[in-house]
């Protein structure tokens, strides 16, 4: 989804706003659950999403940052870049060479090779 890690406070503020506003569900879109967001918007005529938003606002505020990150920032590394592990780089370099061998053998296409190469390189940092 978005490369930017989601902020817990912004999510909570959006949840409170969505509890007060006539149309609710903004926070669901923000945390990357557009389906739930749509459901909330559609149910805006009833008080259900407003109550749910209130509960979620409290929940976002009182759970700790780590748990929030685990739930909504999976795949986005917000922690500062750790030192690069040389053994891991070596393993990825080997994997890249084997991948290139597969490409020259014609077992994977150029596009597949490039996609996998990028995925492997993303694992380094």
């Amino acid at each position: 989804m978005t490369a930017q890690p989601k902020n817990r406070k912004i999510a909570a503020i959006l949840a409170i706003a969505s509890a007060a506003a006539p149309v609710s569900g903004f926070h669901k879109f923000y945390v990357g659950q557009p389906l739930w967001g749509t459901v909330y918007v559609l149910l805006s005529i009833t008080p259900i999403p407003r109550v749910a938003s209130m509960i979620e606002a409290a929940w976002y505020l009182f759970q700790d940052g780590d748990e929030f990150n685990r739930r909504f920032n999976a795949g986005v590394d917000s922690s500062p870049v750790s030192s690069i592990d040389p053994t891991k780089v070596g393993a990825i370099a080997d994997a890249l060479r084997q991948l290139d061998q597969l490409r020259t053998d014609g077992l994977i296409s150029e596009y597949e090779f490039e996609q996998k190469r990028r995925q492997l390189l993303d694992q380094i940092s």
Partner: protein
Amino acid sequence: MVLRNWLSTTTKAVLGQSLAAKIKNDPFYRFQTIEELQIAAQLGISIDANQATVDDWLRLPGISIHQARALVELTHSGVQFHAIDDIAAVLGVSVDRLKPLQLVLRFCYYDPESVCTVQPVNVNTASLEMLLKVPKIDLHLARAIVAHRTTSPYRNLPHLQKRLSLPPTLTAELMHYLRF
């Protein structure tokens, strides 16, 4: 009950829209189902069978990398596909199996005699006579190309340029006519 039905149809519509957006925005999107092929056909996406690359063929459901490579090799060698029957014959499968692919496949005809069509030659396999047909390749250069490829094939254009020490202007003129 009515609300639930309405909700399910709306979520389906939303999902369908996001799928259509995905298909539209990703030029390498690989279709999984015939339904996706129909969406692609509605969006006006088409694959020209006579100019498709391996990755273009792999976008179609059920086409393997070996089949894609076989098809591309044939088109590169100058074979023209005129209908889905030709593809079925090459792949050795029944025409009925490939019928759904017709939704996005186009069979455009490229006149080999036309001056607009450039049929590139493969420098690693072309005979001396075929190389001589390429403009800017004289007998001396054609012989050098043939002599150098006996040790190992040319990987790509920069490789050819380096091995034969071709001047950049000549390479720029040759690049439209050569294939590797």
